[in-house]
């Protein structure tokens, strides 16, 4: 089945945020009254200036922090979430294979099963040959791919990414963006991708929201009018330029 997002199957999580509020230290309001619906299998980019609450939003959706008010409803209620951070955050004392298998190990999956799944995830990100290496022996791009494999190994229905490619050089970032988009199309999970980069958001996502500097107010919520297949050729496409211009306009109003 091919849905409107261009994915083959939809097995992602649908989310509904209702009047979500988050306050730090009982005084600093990071997010105030946020309403947002995210469809199952959607690839949503969240843009906004530093300190606007993007990462806080992601942590609340991951259930690592609770809203001070309002609620986040997920359909289905029980699902597997994966989180990719700004840096790879690998365990340096573990090999690539053991890093990729870590989530399954923590979930109590036996060694044979978890290693088999970790090898599949590593192959999907092009790191099948590196399973015995340690993170210190990898480049920044390879480390981030291990981090991606670690996120994918549990076959998550919701993938949360907090500026995952921000620290990488442009060519590595371009390649990983294409790879991520392909993985999303193949798996049909819901992806929420926080980024500072307008071009990255436009290239990757089907929908982008721009948050205001204060209280996480949504300034722009736009379905991007771009083809589902995203290759590096799209980067010089005027349609991408148009979408970037719209997003930039919303960002510049700050």
């Amino acid at each position, binding site marked *: 089945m091919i849905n409107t997002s261009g994915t083959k199957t939809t097995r992602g999580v649908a989310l509904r945020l209702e009047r979500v509020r988050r306050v730090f230290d009982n005084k600093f309001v990071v997010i105030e009254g946020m309403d947002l619906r995210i469809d199952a299998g959607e690839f949503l980019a969240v843009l906004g200036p530093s300190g606007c609450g993007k990462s806080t939003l992601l*942590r609340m959706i*991951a259930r*690592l922090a609770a809203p001070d008010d309002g609620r986040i409803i997920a359909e289905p209620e029980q699902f597997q*979430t*994966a*989180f990719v*951070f700004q*840096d790879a*955050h690998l*365990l*340096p*004392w573990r090999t690539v294979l053991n890093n990729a298998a*870590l*989530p399954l*190990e*923590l*979930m109590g999956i036996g060694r044979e099963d978890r290693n088999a799944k970790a090898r599949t995830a590593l192959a999907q990100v092009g790191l099948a040959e590196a399973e015995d290496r*340690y*993170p*210190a022996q990898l480049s920044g791009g390879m480390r981030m791919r291990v981090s991606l494999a670690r996120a994918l190994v*549990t076959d998550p229905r919701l993938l949360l990414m907090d500026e995952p490619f921000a620290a990488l050089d442009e060519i590595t970032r371009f390649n990983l963006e294409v790879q991520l988009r392909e993985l999303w199309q193949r798996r049909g999970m819901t992806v929420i991708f926080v980024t500072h980069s307008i071009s990255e958001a436009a290239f990757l996502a089907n929908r982008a929201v721009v948050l205001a500097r204060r209280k996480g107010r949504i300034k722009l919520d736009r379905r991007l009018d771009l083809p589902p297949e995203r290759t590096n050729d799209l980067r010089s496409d005027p349609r991408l330029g148009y979408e970037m211009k719209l997003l930039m306009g919303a960002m510049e109003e700050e």
Partner: protein
Amino acid sequence: MRKFLPPLIPFVVITLALEWMVRSGLVPSYLVPAPSAVLRALLDNREELAAAMTKTSAAALIGFALSTLAGVAIAVLLSSSRAIQRALYPYAVFFQTVPIIAIAPLLVIWFGYGMKTVVASAFIVSIFPVIANTLTGLLSTDPALRDLFRLYGASPAITLVKLRFPAALPQILTGLRVASGLAVIGAIVGEFIGGEGLGSVVDIARTQQRVDKVFAAVLLASALGLALFGLINLISALTLRRWHASEQLQ
């Protein structure tokens, strides 16, 4: 050889210079003995010194092992909550500030003359660096990795074993390096007051004006400290060499 040559050169130079200074009368031999006299004292008293060395080594090793076990356990307890840390850490600092030479007589009263007192002294002197460094390591776990473990439902015990402890290992080993030297110092101090070993050899030789024997015993005590330090370095190299910068640079 390249590794051992740099520290060997100053050793040879200083030894030869000292030998010359003592033999030429520049330094009186009743203050500083000639290296050859120290070597002779080592050989002449080898049985007594070997027995003393064995006792000091055993006491320092037991004290060091106890401070490692107790220090890591206390640090784990302190790191479990801010409230426990605030309540108990000041008492842990007691081990850092206690003047061991002042309480050593008390140890004799509590544990009697012999090994127990010496072990207690080594333990008290060496435990604080283990607590402080382990605690720093345990509290410095990457918050993103803590989130990751929470996301996949890891219990606090699993998080401790699979994340916090291995992440703290470089700091723990730093604490053990400091503690290894202090354990030997603690054992020697304990032996001054209430035990047998290199400390009591030094004390007795001092009263007999046998400066050469004092130096021989001090030399063996230093060798013991170096051996313990080397052991921790070996463990550090074996456990950290694949992933930690401190071992990859060496």
